[in-house]
């Protein structure tokens, strides 16, 4: 999946990433999200992923002035659009690399959308989802592969 995406995608317009807990792996896909799987606290064995955009993406977008995010409880399938970021009079759709249910959204972005640029890997996270199909994580690019991919398209 990642390989086919690398062949067909020439310029990543929006690369999303996910900040993850230190122990969890950091996975990315070419245009899309980097998801870290974090086991949830408490009971059950649901994997929680935090989604955000990569540094490459935030630079490509320019100053984010508005974040349109889904409601908690929204169920997402892989590749579904879950929101949009606005910068320079352009609204960029956000597509989810993973299937699951939205458990939390970053409320801080309502007042401070610039966090997405300033701290894309930490305070600028977008949403958290409880994964319905953790095997999808295997289809995402690793951080190293992503960085290699970005270098190859940047020239």
């Amino acid at each position, binding site marked *: 999946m990642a390989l086919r995406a690398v062949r067909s995608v020439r310029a990543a*317009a929006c690369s999303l990433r996910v900040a993850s807990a230190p122990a969890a792996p950091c996975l990315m896909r070419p*245009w899309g999200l980097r998801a870290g799987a974090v086991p949830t606290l408490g009971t059950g064995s649901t994997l929680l992923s935090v989604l955000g955009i990569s540094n490459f993406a935030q630079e490509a977008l320019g100053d984010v*002035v508005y974040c349109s995010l889904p409601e908690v409880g929204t169920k997402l399938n892989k590749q579904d659009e879950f929101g*949009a970021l606005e910068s320079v009079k352009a609204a*960029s*759709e956000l597509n989810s690399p993973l299937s699951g249910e939205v458990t939390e959204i970053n409320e801080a972005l309502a007042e401070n959308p610039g966090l997405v640029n300033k701290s894309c890997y930490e305070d600028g996270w977008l949403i958290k989802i409880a994964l319905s199909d953790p095997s999808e994580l295997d289809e995402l690019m690793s951080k190293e592969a992503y960085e290699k991919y970005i270098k190859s398209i940047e020239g």
Partner: protein
Amino acid sequence: MRLPAVRLVRLSRIPYTELLALQERWLRRLQAEPGTEAGALLLCEPAGPVYTSGLRGGLTPEETARLRALGAEVRTTGRGGLATFHGPGQLLCHPVLDLRRLGLRLRTHVAALEACAVRLCEFQGLSGARARPPPYTGVWLGERKVCAIGVRCGRHITSHGLALNCSTDLVWFDHIVPCGLVGTGVTSLSEELQRHVTVDEVIPPFLEAFKETYKCTLISEDSSN
């Protein structure tokens, strides 16, 4: 190297909703088979007055009611930017493009739209046209905006675009704060050149500016790629 070919879809005066429906069809076509085509350039002149708001909004329910009472349509869109007006006398251009096929980032696409409008103004003999940085994205003649810009991008495919005032009745803009920029003005090519400039007159030089800026060719909607 062969230049990418963008399909020219030149529409006459059509209702804004028809343009949106056509845009949607092109979006689905390009998103369904990514990488196979560069995209389509949709051009039209709105048949009637319509106010639109963007992703962030830009029009309150009270404003919407007031504008409808004036006889205008009011539509929400998912584009960037706040409130603006579209109507007869305006060139409305929605390039539905695959950014990767054209070697563009979203920001360079926005800059290219501005460059097209600036070039078009130059072709019309107006040398002072300029783009301005955010939040003043758009093309300006002095302190007045002649061309508004607002785009959307999903899966590398763009939609919405620019609105260039040729002979638009500018009074319609008095009823809103255009693009949310208090204290700025709007203008048109007719206003600046002090003669009636039609949308039809402006289309050929606009197409030249587009091909030059985007480094592409324009082919008919139906021709095989």
